[in-house]
């Protein structure tokens, strides 16, 4: 069988997705046997110039991780899309925006000001900010433009498959690799993960308790056997796609939703609001208000990994348009 051409690229990413590929351990050698890696900046020395020499559709699969945050990343997404037959949004940042997507709570100016002007250790009397072009004695130095918001990969280019997780677990990566190598690909648009919700497969004991309010993770030592939500901790399990192996839950910490919403959920945050409010025991508006106040930073919790992909964000965009 001819070797596949594989490209692995990171945009606004943390590198954890690349490490997750290394976490295939000895199977990484099987990947190398089945594929020529034509771009992988963390591990290989191919440059953008090498990439630009590749013809259209010459990359069989591109695993694209990270969100799209600046002009260079957008351009690379476009170049890679044009050259790739199959584009995989790899990891939660590429799929839904991920943690870097929380930046959509603010704008370009707010970020630049805090980072380069008002942080307590920064000394910048001239108020210098990074510029697209800077004249230095020897010539001109250029930088990509920092965009006003964070985009998911499919907001920038067409995506064929989604592999969620922050980072995706090695067993799912291997499932995807096998599907790719064997040519046994699911329908376009498929999410390579579970179909149920995390709660559906969670081993913790659920008793349908009613709550008066919520507690924060540092305020209690939860029982390791019982449902965390029923112990009063906000757990995103009801609105999160299964497939991670309950990694946080097993460490006695509530889920924060990194696998994104299950297929039938339109908006992960909205679903969480309805799930959480349904277990609250509030008969009057006052009780409901008091209970709601026990959830701090609801937006940052319910949209921890998916703000750029959320309904909320779309509303904002339409307003701006």
């Amino acid at each position, binding site marked *: 069988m001819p070797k596949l051409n594989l490209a692995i690229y990171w945009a606004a990413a943390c590198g954890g*997705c690349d490490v997750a590929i290394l976490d295939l351990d000895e199977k990484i050698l099987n990947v190398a046997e089945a594929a020529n890696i034509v771009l992988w900046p*963390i591990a290989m*020395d191919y440059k953008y110039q090498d990439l630009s020499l590749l013809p259209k559709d010459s990359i069989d699969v591109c695993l694209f991780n990270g969100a799209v945050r600046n002009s*260079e990343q957008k351009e690379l997404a476009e170049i890679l899309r044009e050259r790739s037959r199959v584009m995989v949004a790899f990891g939660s940042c590429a799929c839904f925006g991920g943690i*870097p997507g929380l930046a959509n709570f603010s704008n370009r100016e707010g970020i630049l000001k805090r*980072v380069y002007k008002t942080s307590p*250790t920064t000394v910048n009397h001239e108020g210098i900010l990074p510029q697209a072009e800077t004249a230095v004695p*020897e010539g001109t130095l250029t930088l990509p433009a920092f965009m006003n918001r964070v985009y998911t990969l499919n907001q920038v280019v067409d995506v064929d498959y989604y592999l969620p997780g922050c980072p995706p677990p090695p067993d799912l990566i291997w499932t995807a690799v096998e599907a790719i190598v064997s040519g046994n690909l699911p329908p376009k648009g498929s999410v390579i993960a579970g179909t149920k919700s995390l709660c559906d497969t969670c081993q913790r004991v659920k008793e349908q308790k009613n709550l008066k309010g919520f507690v924060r993770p540092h305020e209690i030592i939860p029982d390791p056997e019982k449902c965390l939500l029923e112990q009063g901790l906000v757990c995103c399990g009801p609105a999160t796609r299964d497939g991670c192996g309950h990694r946080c839950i097993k460490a006695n910490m509530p889920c924060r939703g990194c696998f994104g919403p299950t297929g039938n959920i339109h908006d992960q945050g909205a679903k969480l609001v309805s799930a959480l409010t349904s277990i609250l025991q509030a008969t009057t508006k006052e009780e409901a208000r008091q209970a709601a106040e026990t959830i701090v930073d609801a937006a940052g919790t319910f949209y921890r990994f998916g703000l750029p992909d959320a309904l909320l964000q779309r509303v904002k965009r339409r307003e701006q348009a």
Partner: protein
Amino acid sequence: MKRITIDPITRLEGHGKIEVFLDDAGNVAKAYLQIPELRGFEKFCEGRAAEEMPRIVPRICGVCPEAHHLASAKALDSLWQVDPPPAAKKLRELFYCAHFIHSHIAHFYALAAPDFVVGPGADKSQRNILGVVAKVGLETGTQVIKHRSYAQKIQAMIGGKATHPVCGLPGGMSKPLSEEERKHIEAMAMSCVDFAKESLQIFEDVVLKNNEYVKLILSEMYQLAPYSMGLVDGNNRVNFYDGLVRVVDQKGQEVAKFASHQYPDFIAEHVESWSYLKFPYLKNPGWKGIMEDAESGILWVGPLGRLNAAEGMATPMAQKAYEKMYGALGGKPSRATLAFHWARLVELLYAAERMLELSQDPEITSTDIRRLPTAIPREGFGIVEAPRGTLYHHYQTNEQGILEKVNIVVATAHNYAAMNISVDKAAKGLVKNGELNQQALNMIEMAFRAYDPCFGCATHTMPGSLPVDIKIYNSQGEPWINLPW
């Protein structure tokens, strides 16, 4: 003026590019290491609940998420003024030793070794971990993969996930270690000690026994003399998890020693318009530009910076390796950039030895691993040694523990000025009369690669608070309540 652009620079974490300007004779006028990216964690963490930070900040870097996780957990201990029980601290340190093992193995074998084992001038299709495996043999290759995987397993066991762990909370840890897990870790730790010793042996055989490489390590273009900074214990020995920050000068004299809350008195950051990454420096003597001069507060952190800043290692075999290294390099502090690789392996041995010690500590399986905070939060500081150097987290909150201000100064940034000088020096030493080849270009990259930079970390800086208005309707579809979020 002609220019050579290396874009992207490769075999590192994150994004970067090098611009080399040539004069009319084709010699290097100046080389710049630019960081083209910014994310902005300082800003978008505002408005978040402080206790969530250990689960948010690891996304600054997926190669050293544990460093951010623990710096954050320590900042929360300080924010809520709660001291974790001794077993929790030991568990954190054990977890952290495993992290160093993963990170140092990944850097040495996957990112750095291709330059030495395969060779700096080898074809780029070979200059990678697969080329290394082809060269050292599948057996050694398998050992490398196995031990990095052990380190990841141990982190996942304690932290829930190897990448982006969840175990750290103000006042302790989320889950105790079972006796069965402990035994498993102990066995893996023993194997890691042997593997670390073998790695030092490989370094000796492949690098130190090769005159070309030794000449390279000692050549002037790979030398630099900045200040060195790192955490030390009560005996001035290297410590990754706790202690005071110690800074030594170019002669090895201590010039500063401070606790986490004092960091703004010692560290400041400079901004240049041609990079998204800031340049941290020592406040005293101050910023004098990107130049190699004792008058300028430019720093070295990371393995060599740490070993330079300390007086030794806290475990016996690592101490021996430390003495051997400085003996060969001609004393302390070392100026050899490429000796970062050697120092990294000395630390690999320390991390493995310390991991074994901790896994055999009777207290490590204690279930007393959490204190619930009672104080009202306001301001917290957390420092750890990331594999790439000293990492500072600083949080300010309101009385509910909601973040109002966040400042993070990461390891790689401390090295940014030094890396720029190293890249410039290497370029000047390697590109002459307009002649350049692939080997020279790669050897310019070797100048920054020694530092194991993580520009993912360095460009963490992203934005905070979205007013959400949630209306709940009753079963008849009538508006019932507006939730105040």
